[in-house]
């Protein structure tokens, strides 16, 4: 089966997707899929080839010149005009307006393209609108990479645990915070010190507020809660506390009493009520959620399967591309059946 893609946004994740598609070409062929990228756009250029973009060349050009192509056609024009099946939206997350991702996704749906995205902004602000539009148009819309990076938390809950009633999910969804808290605990160093260290290592952004104030975790939790409990909350509705006030003394006390402190996101069904929030919490040492370093983890509570915990890398170019690839293959499989 032949499917044509466009990639909108060609940074860490976009290039990871291109690399993975190139690397997995033979395996995909064995599965009976012929995936072809017909257009790539970044913020100022695009690279279009209706016979298939040379991905190796595209990555090379982006790395050498900073732009992916010579064409002036914008992402929106590309989504509208270049015939393709699936648009892969991987532009930066914007928590204020959701743009440019929101317009990209809406345009794709209006033009009959399925969408796979890792961009949290549009989904954390306008979940219902996007999901309903996709449904109305009979299009697939998948976003596994938005929550937990390589950790397949959405597809695990929605598909593999099908038939189970999901009672709640409690997890660690931000690798930057987890790294900072793990280092503070093991080295007994102050927050500011470990933050600078994480910035030097490229684990934390120069403006870390998005991570350390729990915004990123709240975005992911919102998307997860909306997906699993069929809600329409905005991330602004989520109570949130970050990790900036935690001192080494708190971590030492926790450790002395058999706990560690983690930035936890939780969404629990409590009768008709949904209990949702982001906050530093005490996690017993040795509990499956007490993972270290930049790892993410999620414990899923169900009525039949009881508790299932997964852990994995929450970010990274190839790790995120892994989630995107699995979404692409899922869509391809359904399209093959629908045909």
């Amino acid at each position: 089966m032949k499917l044509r893609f466009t990639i909108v946004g060609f940074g860490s994740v976009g290039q990871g997707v291109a690399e993975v598609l190139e690397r997995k070409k033979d395996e995909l062929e064995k599965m009976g899929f012929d995936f072809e990228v017909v257009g790539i756009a970044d913020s100022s250029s695009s690279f279009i080839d209706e016979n298939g973009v040379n991905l190796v060349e595209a990555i090379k050009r982006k790395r050498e010149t900073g732009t992916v192509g010579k064409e002036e056609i914008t992402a929106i024009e590309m989504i509208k005009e270049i015939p393709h099946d699936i648009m892969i939206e991987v532009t930066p997350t914007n928590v204020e307006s959701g743009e440019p991702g929101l317009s990209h996704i809406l345009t794709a749906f209006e033009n009959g393209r399925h969408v796979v995205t890792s961009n949290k902004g549009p989904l954390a602000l306008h979940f219902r609108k996007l999901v309903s539009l996709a449904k109305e148009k009979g299009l697939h819309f998948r976003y596994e990479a938005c929550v937990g990076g390589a950790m397949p938390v959405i597809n695990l809950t929605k598909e593999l645990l099908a038939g189970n009633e999901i009672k709640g999910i409690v997890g660690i969804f931000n690798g930057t915070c987890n790294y900072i808290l793990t280092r503070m605990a093991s080295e007994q160093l102050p927050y500011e010190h470990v933050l600078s260290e994480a910035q030097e290592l490229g684990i934390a952004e120069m403006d870390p507020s998005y991570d350390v104030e729990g915004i990123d975790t709240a975005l992911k939790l919102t998307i997860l809660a909306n997906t699993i409990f069929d809600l329409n909350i905005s991330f602004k509705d989520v109570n949130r506390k970050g990790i900036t006030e935690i001192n080494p003394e708190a971590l030492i006390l926790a450790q002395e009493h058999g706990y560690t402190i983690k930035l936890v996101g939780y969404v629990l069904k409590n009768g008709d009520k949904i209990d949702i929030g982001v906050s530093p919490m005490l996690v017993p040492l040795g509990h499956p959620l007490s993972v270290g370093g930049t790892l993410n983890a999620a414990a899923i509570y169900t009525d039949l399967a009881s508790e299932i915990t997964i852990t994995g890398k929450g970010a990274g170019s190839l790790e995120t591309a892994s989630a995107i690839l699995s979404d692409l293959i899922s869509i391809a499989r359904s399209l093959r059946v629908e045909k």
Partner: protein
Amino acid sequence: MIRISMDLELKDVPGQLVSVLRPISEKGGNIVSVVHHRDKKTPTGAIPVQITFEIEEKKVKEVLKELEAHGIRIVRAGEDRLRETTSVILVGHVVHTDIRDTIDAIDKTGFAEVIDLSLKMPGVEKPSAAFMTISATSEEGLRKALQILREISERKNLLLIEPVRWL
């Protein structure tokens, strides 16, 4: 039903434990736990044993009488009022914002108490941290105590780190 915990001293001979447990179960009591402290033998060679059981309140006296009749030495017996326990950490100016008042707010509820507190104070002007263990008579009481702590933390500008929520 109330929960009773007792410290007994039993002679180190066979059948001693049975003579304690039988009267309890005969009166409709439910044994929750039995712990032998063989390593802490008394000078007379008796073994300290801790027993916890649940029973109707009006049967307690009968049980105690029966045990005494069997010549069993009861060191202590009392209602185990505080059954539910949880711990939290407070971060910020915990002491300067009147820690006594924070503890009192819990203790004066009548259903919850602060049973343990450890403090770490890095320096005079720096935020400190307190690990606090609270016990309550029921789960509901514990929830209410946590809610009181949440309100106090908000008012005193402290960061409250609660135990992770499970199902």
